[in-house]
């Protein structure tokens, strides 16, 4: 029954192709398992249509829809080849059966020259499960016997080939080149494995694709032939040498599946007995291609890359970086004790040959020990190369306490887009290192001892005579003896003078008595003559003279008051002084007053005599 339908369909095909304008519906499968998608192709030959009315595909579900216009092309869709020799228009629907049973797809309509053309209807059997049975091979077998046999006997170069492509072939030293390997195929590739990887001499390579993931496939048409293109390898190449560098071909071993012989529809049992393991119960019912896995080796085309040297005038800080970068630096800690470390992170981010960047030199004062930096990478690989960050972690070990400045790090790179070197700088950092012995890490006012040095000189403004050492001992001794001698001399002189003075007074005192008695004698004479005035004068002069001599006081300075003072000074009894002075006053009164001679002169004489005698 099924075969009959197929034959009918085949004859129908031949019939329709005889018309100048034909509109046919076709499908590769007469029977499909449920949930297995298949394509239905509506083809309009020899005419152009502006409108296409699609049929009702119930109970199939449309999951894809495509249309093509073109002439004499070979279209490959999911490894199914659609050959046609003339100008044609195609509408392809991918259908998914949803129910079991045999269904008929009603014809579609196209509008050609204001005439509606109708295609044939298709009958599809949807089975429970299993592999779809093709009906296309039937047509091929009867139609193009010689052509297909030729295809099977030898594999054309353009059926499957390996192609290497680079994004650029003229680069600067260090500028990445993206090398992609593609398998172009029109046959089913079951498996492939890289046989021989090129050495990439003169390059530093980085694989951009993960080998574990499946190759990304696209479709591409070359010379009218449609290929499935699989990107099997993507490699970033960083040239390390200048000149023309060659990339050796890549060798890939692939297992492909392609038709080897045509199954005779009536030779099922032969086949069954010949290849019992390949027995397919469904294929028995439909004639189809016999496929067989085949191992082939593919070789890619060699590639040449011209590497130009970088222009002259690279800065000193240039460390092989080519690309576009930014740098930033940070300190994990800006203060530490001696014996601890300061961690300095230098982050270079951007796009370019990041894995090849050498650590920039950290310029530090002498008091530091810097270890080779630890490198941490965070790269993202894409088809355009490597981008991301590379972190250099410098461990700085201070050897002395103090406050220091980490100077900025210069980082230079060659910018391919600008074609020149660019230098960027990080920030400057201040760090503090504390001596664990004498400082508290968290105190701001900590004084850290850096280096010991002697104190500064004492400015001497002047030197006085007292700063002079007396070298001469004799002079020193003289300095002591001179004042001593001086004082002794003075004292001797003083003592002598005192002695003389003492002698003088003694004499005077001795004389005083004598003198007084002499004067008293004169007074006595006047008393006898009863000359009272003369008598009193003589008496007073005797008394005054006596006081003057006795107390060593000049007569001119002597009066009642001074006499009182000097006698007091000499510790004379006050009553006696008063008595004497009262007597003197009385005598003066009689001496200078107008006289009356009724005065007892002898009484005065006696008293005066007593005074003088007493005082001796």
């Amino acid at each position, binding site marked *: 029954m099924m075969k009959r339908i197929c034959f009918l369909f085949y004859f129908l095909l031949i019939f329709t192709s005889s018309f100048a304008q034909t509109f046919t519906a076709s499908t590769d499968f007469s029977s499909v398992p449920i949930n297995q998608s298949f394509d239905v192709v509506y083809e309009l030959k020899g005419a152009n249509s502006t409108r296409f009315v699609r049929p009702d595909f119930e109970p199939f579900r449309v999951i894809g829809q495509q249309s093509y216009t073109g002439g004499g092309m070979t279209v490959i869709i999911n490894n199914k080849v659609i050959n046609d020799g003339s100008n044609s228009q195609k509408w392809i629907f991918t259908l998914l059966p949803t129910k079991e049973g045999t269904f008929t797809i009603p014809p579609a309509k196209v509008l050609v020259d204001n005439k509606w053309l109708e295609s044939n209807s298709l009958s599809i059997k949807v089975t429970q499960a299993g592999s779809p049975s093709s009906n296309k091979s039937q047509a091929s077998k009867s139609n193009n016997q010689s052509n297909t046999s030729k295809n099977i006997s030898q594999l054309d170069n353009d059926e499957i080939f390996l192609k290497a492509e680079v994004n650029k072939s003229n680069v600067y030293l260090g500028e990445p080149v993206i090398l992609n390997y593609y398998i172009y195929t029109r046959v089913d590739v079951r498996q492939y494995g890289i046989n021989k990887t090129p050495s990439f001499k003169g390059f530093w390579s980085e694989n951009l694709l993960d080998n574990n993931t499946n190759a990304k496939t696209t479709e591409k048409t070359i010379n009218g032939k449609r290929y499935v293109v699989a990107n099997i390898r993507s490699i970033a190449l960083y040239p390390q040498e200048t000149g023309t560098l060659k990339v050796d071909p890549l060798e890939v071993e692939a297992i492909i599946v392609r038709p080897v012989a045509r199954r005779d529809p009536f030779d099922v049992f032969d086949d069954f007995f010949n290849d019992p393991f390949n027995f397919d119960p469904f294929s028995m019912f439909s004639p189809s291609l016999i496929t067989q896995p085949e191992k082939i080796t593919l070789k890619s085309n060699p590639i040449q890359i011209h590497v130009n040297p970088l222009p002259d005038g690279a800065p000193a800080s240039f460390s092989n970086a080519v690309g576009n970068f930014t740098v930033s630096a940070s300190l994990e800690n800006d203060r530490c004790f001696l014996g601890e470390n300061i961690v300095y992170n230098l982050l270079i981010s951007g796009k370019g040959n990041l894995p090849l960047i050498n650590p920039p030199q950290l310029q530090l004062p002498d008091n530091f020990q810097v270890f080779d930096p630890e490198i941490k990478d965070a790269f993202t690989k894409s088809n355009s190369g490597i981008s991301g960050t590379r972190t250099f972690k410098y461990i700085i070990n201070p050897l002395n306490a103090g406050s220091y400045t980490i100077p900025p790090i210069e980082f230079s790179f060659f910018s391919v887009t600008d074609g020149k070197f660019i230098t960027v700088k990080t920030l400057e950092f201040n760090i503090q290192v504390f001596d664990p012995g004498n400082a508290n890490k968290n105190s701001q006012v900590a004084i850290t001892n850096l280096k010991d*040095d*002697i104190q500064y*000189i*004492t400015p001497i*403004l002047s*030197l006085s*005579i007292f700063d002079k050492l007396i070298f001469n001992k004799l002079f020193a001794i003289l300095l002591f003896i001179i*004042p001593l001698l001086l004082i002794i001399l003075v004292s001797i002189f003083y003592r002598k003078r005192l002695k003389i003075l003492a002698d003088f007074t003694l004499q005077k005192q001795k004389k005083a008595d004598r003198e007084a008695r002499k004067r008293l004698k004169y007074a006595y004479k006047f008393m006898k003559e009863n000359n009272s005035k003369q008598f009193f004068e003589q008496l007073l002069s005797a008394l005054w003279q006596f006081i003057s001599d006795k107390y060593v006081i000049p007569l001119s300075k002597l009066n009642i008051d001074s006499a009182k003072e000097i006698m007091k000074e000499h510790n004379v009894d006050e009553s006696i002084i008063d008595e004497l002075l009262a007597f003197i006053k009385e005598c003066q009164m009689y001496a200078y007053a107008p006289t009356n001679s009724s005065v007892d002169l002898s009484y005065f004489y006696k008293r005066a005599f007593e005074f003088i005698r007493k005082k001796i």
Partner: protein
Amino acid sequence: MKKIILTILLIFFCGVISSFANKETKALLLKADSAYKAQDFKTAYQLWESLINKGYITDDLYYNMGNASYRMGDISTAIWFYKKAILLSKYNNNAKDNLNLLVNKGYAKLLPQPMGFTAFANNILTAIPYNILFWVTWSVFVLLSLFIFLFAFKKNSNRAHLFWLIVFSAIFFIYFFSSFIYQNININNSKNAIVATQSTNLYSSPDSLSIAIAIINEGTEVKCIESIGNWQKILTPNQKTGWIQNNNLLFLKFHLPQSQ
């Protein structure tokens, strides 16, 4: 009497005036300071040395010369100068600091400081710096003589006050005088010396053919016990005795660092 005091004061005054008016020394000092500032330590050293040769003996001069020696790299001479500066005035903290620094750095090794009563007596007797001590003693002496004179001859003045003045000034005079004698011995007859040569053998007897019993490094302070010819018997900071030649030592008793 007043005239005597006045004349003494006048002499003092004239002395002070004349010392301040000494422009030559002032110029020398300024020159030395600027030379030191300009890192010309040798010139500064020579200028200060000339002042010391003129008889100006002050701790600051010695201290500055010590600094100049240190800067010139002559550590043992620097130690000698600092030591001398401290002997002249124990209040020279700069010299003390620098000497401590040298000790801490290991350049200098000093004899142990006296302890107990000796230290106490030493403290008291060095309380007044040497360069002013002479004049202090002298003036106290003059005052004391005056008081005694007054006490002896001014019978009518206040004798009780005078008596106490005499007593106090006599005590002070005795103190100053003994202090002066003590410091004079310490400074001008010091037995200590600084080893000046890099490393010297300490011999068991005063001839270089005898057994070397120790090696003494530069900057060690030693005490000279006795001398025979140009050999000195010394006591090292670690209480070892031995003989060493004079030319290895800088004696503290001289005004300038010299071996003999």
